[in-house]
């Protein structure tokens, strides 16, 4: 068969031209998208790092072991990764605007996962971030404490230790699963004490439709490896000797478990009056009762007051009943010494926090001395 080469000219011509243009695009890409190395000046010279340019600031920092907290992993959908930028990085992106107030924008606060590193920058980050590390923890044990709360205990790799203050939280990362196509991180307070240097424990309550809590409750297995970044947060006990009025509900117990165990470890539990109010609806919503009743018995200054708002007949409950705010109010008026200094420590949903803060200030407690877990 005689092949007429003229038939090949057309496709070869088109192919050749396309190849030539593709090469042109490739070359331009290498030139234009090569930002070289970028110098990042952090906290006015306190630390300087050099990272590969062209990537978002959040990832550049993470590359050098500086972990700015992020709930969505850099997708621009949580607004957590705020960083104060001192040098010029271009105008505020439309993707950043929903997360920043006018004052923040004026102060140079930006969403670091939306800023591409194109030139040297100078930024400011909170001091505590220098102590944040990432850990490849292994799930050691998962225990159910109530119908919707799991106690998750993770072991750190051999020889790796974590240093934190009781009351702080960690960012817990779960992998892509089911219909969720990307890794997601959420914040949970550490319920393990700081003395436990090789272990981290969290109390995780199932939130309907929640990406991470659904994974933890339905897919997490013992022996699995999980990435944890931390510690973060400034909720902690203030060493003043004042009476501690602590209020928590549900998974809000976590930081207090860490705090009280920490005080036992350090031998400071007897140094001040501690009132711990734990509010729930029925008996099946409370947990760690044995441990807390024991602390109440063994330590004269430690008072555990669990309150159920709607105890069921089968609960056989003879403890305080009613909303935790009512019970708190009652104790502040009738039982707790009004003369001695008081500090408030709160951990729970924003609605509960607001209600408790109102009760506390109505009973004469100063709002600056009421501390709460703020990462909502």
């Amino acid at each position, binding site marked *: 068969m005689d092949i007429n080469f003229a038939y090949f*000219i*057309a496709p070869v*011509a*088109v192919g*050749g*031209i*396309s190849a030539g*243009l*593709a090469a*042109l*695009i490739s070359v*331009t*890409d290498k030139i*234009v*998208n090569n930002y070289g190395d970028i110098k990042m000046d952090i906290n006015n010279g306190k630390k300087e790092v050099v990272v590969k340019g062209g990537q978002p600031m959040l990832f550049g920092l993470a590359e050098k072991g500086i972990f700015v907290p992020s709930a969505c992993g850099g997708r621009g959908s949580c607004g957590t990764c705020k960083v104060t930028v001192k040098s010029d990085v*271009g*105008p505020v*992106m*439309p993707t950043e605007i929903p997360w920043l107030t006018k004052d923040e924008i004026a102060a140079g606060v930006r969403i670091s996962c939306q800023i*591409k590193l*194109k030139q040297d920058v100078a930024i400011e980050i909170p001091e505590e971030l220098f102590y944040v590390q990432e850990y490849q923890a292994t799930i050691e044990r998962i225990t159910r404490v109530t119908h919707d709360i799991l106690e998750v205990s993770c072991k750190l790799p051999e020889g790796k230790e974590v240093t934190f203050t009781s009351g702080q939280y960690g960012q817990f990362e779960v992998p892509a699963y089911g219909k969720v196509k990307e890794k997601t991180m959420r914040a949970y307070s550490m319920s393990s004490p700081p003395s436990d240097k090789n272990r981290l424990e969290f109390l995780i309550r199932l939130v309907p439709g929640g990406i991470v809590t659904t994974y933890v409750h339905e897919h997490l297995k013992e022996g699995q490896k999980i990435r944890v970044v931390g510690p973060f947060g400034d909720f902690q006990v203030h060493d003043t000797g004042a009476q501690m009025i602590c209020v928590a509900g549900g998974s809000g117990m976590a930081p207090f478990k860490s705090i009280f165990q920490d005080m036992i470890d350090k031998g400071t539990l007897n140094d001040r009056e501690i009132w711990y109010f734990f509010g729930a609806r029925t008996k099946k919503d409370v947990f760690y009762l044995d441990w807390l009743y024991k602390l109440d018995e063994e330590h004269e200054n430690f008072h555990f007051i669990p309150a159920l708002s709607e105890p069921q007949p089968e609960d056989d409950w003879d403890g305080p009943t009613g909303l935790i705010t009512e019970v708190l109010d009652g104790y502040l008026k009738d039982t707790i010494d009004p003369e001695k200094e008081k500090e408030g420590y709160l951990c729970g949903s924003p609605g509960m926090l607001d209600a408790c803060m109102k009760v506390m200030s109505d009973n004469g407690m100063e709002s600056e001395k009421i501390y709460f877990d703020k990462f909502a």
Partner: protein
Amino acid sequence: MNAAPILNPFSLFVASIFTSNILLANFLGMCSFISISKDMTSSNGLGMAVTVVLTITAALNWVILHHVLIPLQVEYLRFIVFIITIAAVVQVLEMVIDRVSQALYMSLGIFLPLITVNCAILGVSLFMEIRNYTFVQSAIYGLGSGLGWWLAIMALAAIRKKTEKSKISPGLQGPGITVITIGFMAMAFVGFSGMLAVQ
């Protein structure tokens, strides 16, 4: 093949901007014209981008037409090949804009890749081919058409800005009054037609 037209380069340049404005006389390049003219800064940016693309593609397509397609006797491939070069040039331009000004890149958004299918770009290359321009004439025509497109979109953006606060009957608001405005602009430019030769 016919010979190249004998044209004064300067008069070709002026003609392609004013009297044979690619948008208002030939009605090519309408879609982004109507949508982006809502905002003056984006119109400015897009006008610049279209000018760059037009100049480069008109020249590049001339080279490919006369040095690859015609020698190989495959001029019939010009439609496909012109589109491929336009797409490549726009891709390169996108990368450069992203590097130079991320704000402009974000504000142009989807309209940057839409330049590829903007009929004005292909139209200029095809006019260049039909009218048998020389290389220099193609480049001038491309540059001039781009500037003309830029001028037209800036004019429309300015008019839309001025009439933002005017009372317009509900049925005509938005696209309606915009198209009517474009019609008026075109009528004004019709007055120039034929004054200067483009072919």
